[in-house]
C-alpha cells in the first residue's frame, strides 16, 4: 500500500514540477505575433523583380509564410535562397525551375532617352533619377537588376548589363583538391535529391 502511495506521490510531484517549468517557459519565451513573414522576407534578395508572380518580395514572403506559395519561386535567390526558406518553413525543398543568372545592372543609353519618366515609375527601389524631358540615369549602387524598367521604355534605350566583378569582392573558390571537390559534388547531389 505504501509503495503505491509513494509511486503516486512521486509521479504526481514530477508532473506538477514539469507543469510549473512549462508554464514559466511559456512566459519567458513568449513570442509576439507571427514573425514568419519577416523571417522569410529576410531570406529574400529584395530585388522586387516580381518574377515569383507576386508584386514584390514582401508579398511573396507573406504567401510563403501562409503556405499559399511554393518555396522555389524566387529566381534571383536561386537554390541557396530556396534551401534557406525550405529549412525555415520545415518543408521539403523543391528544385528551382529557373537558373539564377549572373547579377545584372540596368543601364540607360542617355542620348536616346526621351525623358518620359516611365522607367522611374516602374523602378521598385527608386534607383532611377531624372525629371520629365531630361535624361534619366540609373544608380548602379541601388539597381537590383529586376528588369522592370526595360519593358515600359518606349524607345528601348535601357540595356541589362552584367554587373562588373570588383577585385575587392573577389573571393577564394574552394580548393581544387580531390577531397574538397568530392565533398562538394556530394553536397550538390544531396541538395538536388532532397
Amino acid at each position: 500500500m505504501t509503495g503505491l502511495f509513494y509511486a503516486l506521490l512521486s509521479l504526481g510531484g514530477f508532473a506538477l514540477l514539469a507543469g510549473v517549468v512549462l508554464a514559466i517557459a511559456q512566459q519567458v519565451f513568449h513570442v509576439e505575433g507571427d514573425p514568419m513573414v519577416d523571417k522569410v522576407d529576410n531570406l529574400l534578395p529584395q530585388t522586387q523583380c516580381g518574377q515569383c508572380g507576386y508584386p514584390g518580395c514582401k508579398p511573396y514572403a507573406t504567401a510563403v509564410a501562409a503556405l499559399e506559395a511554393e518555396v522555389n519561386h524566387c529566381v534571383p535567390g536561386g537554390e541557396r535562397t530556396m534551401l534557406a526558406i525550405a529549412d525555415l518553413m520545415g518543408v521539403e525543398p523543391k528544385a528551382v525551375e529557373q537558373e539564377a543568372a549572373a547579377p545584372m545592372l540596368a543601364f540607360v543609353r542617355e542620348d536616346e532617352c526621351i525623358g518620359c519618366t516611365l522607367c522611374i515609375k516602374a523602378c521598385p527601389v527608386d534607383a532611377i533619377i531624372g525629371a520629365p524631358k531630361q535624361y534619366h540615369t540609373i544608380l548602379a549602387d541601388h539597381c537590383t537588376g529586376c528588369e522592370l524598367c526595360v519593358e515600359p521604355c518606349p524607345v528601348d534605350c535601357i540595356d541589362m548589363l552584367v554587373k562588373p566583378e570588383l577585385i575587392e569582392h573577389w573571393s577564394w573558390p574552394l580548393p581544387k583538391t580531390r577531397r574538397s571537390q568530392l565533398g562538394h559534388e556530394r553536397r550538390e547531389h544531396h541538395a538536388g535529391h532532397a
Partner: protein
Amino acid sequence: MPAMLRNLAQRLGMMAHSFDGGIHPAQHKISAALASEPCPLSPIHILPMKMHIGAPCTSLVAVGDYVLRGQKIAKSEGYVSVPVHAPTSGRVVRIEEYAIPHPSGMGIPSIFIESDGDDAADDSIEPISDWRGMDPALLRERARMCGLAGLGGAVFPTFIKLVQDSRFPIETVVLNGIECEPWLTNDHRLMVEYADEILTGLAIIMHMVKTDSAIIAIEDNKPDAAKAIQLALDARDDLDDVRVVVLPTRYPQGSEKQLIYSLTGREVPAGKLPMHVGVLCQNVGTTRALYQAVVLGQPLTERMVSVSGDAMPRPANLRVRIGTPMRYVFARQGLEDFDGVRILHGGPMMGELLRHPDVPVVKSTNGMLAMREASFMSAHTQEQACIRCGHCSEACPAGLVPNLLADQCRSDQFDKAESYNLFDCIECGACSYVCPSNIPLVHYFRYGKGQIAQQRREKGFAEASRVRSEARDMRIEQEKQARAARRSSVRKTHPPKVEAESAPASEPAESSKMEQESKD
C-alpha cells in the same frame, strides 16, 4: 616545452612572454649577406590606382602629361586611402586596366609612365629638418600625402596609425624588424644598411605619438642587424628609453598581435587595435619611409625588395622603383625563362602565387620569389583525410582549432565557422605547414571568409533595397491618400471637374525623386 607549463611560467614571471603555437620553417635566407643595390630604371612603370588597404585612388593625370618623380598622379578617395606618386620622370602613355599582384589575376585601372631617363624630381614637398618642433598633425598629413602604407606587406595607410588619442595614449612604440618569412631579407638589409635613418624615423614616430619608450624587435637569426641597430642607437644622444630586443626565431613572430604579446605580455582584444593596449607597431621599412617623407621630403616611390628563390640565378636585395614591371626585375637578375618556374609575391608562408611576371612591383612587394616547379609543388601535394592529429591546433598562434574550422568551411557551415572564431585567423599558414594530410587549411579559411563576406554584402544590399522599396510603397500610398483628399475637397468646391487629376498627381513623385537625387 609544453604550452601549459610555459603559460604558467610566463604568468608567474619566471619566463619571458612568448606567443602560443608557431613553427620553425626552414629559413632559406640566402640573400641575407647581399648588400642592397639599386635596380636600374625600367623603360616603363605601371602604377595601379590602389596599392594599399582601403579605397582606390582616382587619376590626376591624362595621357600625354609629363610627370616628375614624386609628383602626385592619383589622389585618394576616402579616409582609408593614400595617394600614388610617379616613381620617375616621364610621360603618361596609357591609363588602362592592368594586372596587379593578386591571387585572382585580375587587374585594376593603372597609369603607365614611360620614363625619359632624366629621373627629374618634383621638389615641391619641403624637407622638414626641425620636425621636433612641429605639430604632430602636420607630420601626420605629411605621412598621408607622401603615400605611406605599411611596407611589411599589409599596406595599411600609415598615417591612420600615427595618431594621438587621449583615450588610448601610446606607451610603447614597437619597431618590427622580425621578418619571420623564410627567404625574405629586405628588412634585414634595411636594418644593417640604414640603421640611423630607421632610428630617426622611429624618433619621428615617438614625437608624433608623444612617448619616450620604444622596443626594436629583431629575431636572433639576424645578429648583424641587431648589432647595427644597437651601434646606431648607442651613437645617438636621443632615444634613451629605446631597447633592442632579440627574440628567438619562430614563425609568425612578425605578426603584429603575436609580437606585441611576446614583447609586452599584452593581448590586443579581438576587434581592437594595438593602440587600445597602448602600443603602436611599425615595420622598419615603413619607419625609414617616414624618415624619407619627413626629413627628405620624398614621397614613397621606391622600396626594398628581396629577389630570391631556388630558381633565381642571382638572388639580391634591390631598391626598386614602385611600378617597375616584375619581368624587368627578374630579367636583371638573370631569370628570363619562366618555364617550370613559379613566382611568388611575398614570402612562401603568406605570399601570393602569381600567374605570370607581368605585374608591377607595388607598395606591398617585400619579396619576389622564383621557385622551381618541383620544390613548389611539394608543398601542395594531394590532400588526404584529416587524421585529427591536432598538430594544427598546436601550431596555431591564434588559439583556433584549424581542422574543425576547415571542415566547417568545406561543408559551407559558415555560421558555425564564425562561432568557432574563423575571423580571428590571421592566415599565417602555420597549420597548413604542419598538416601531415596536406590539407590546404588556409585555403578553406579564405574560402569561408570570402563566402561569409559575400553573404553579408548580399544581405546588406537586400536590406537597403527593402528599405528603398518600402519607402517607395509608403510614398505611393501617401500620394494616393493626398490625391483622394484633394479629390474630395475638389468635389466639395467644384463638383463636376474630375478629369484633370492625373497630370498634377505625378508631380509630387518627381519632386521626391529629385530630393532623392540630391541626397545621393
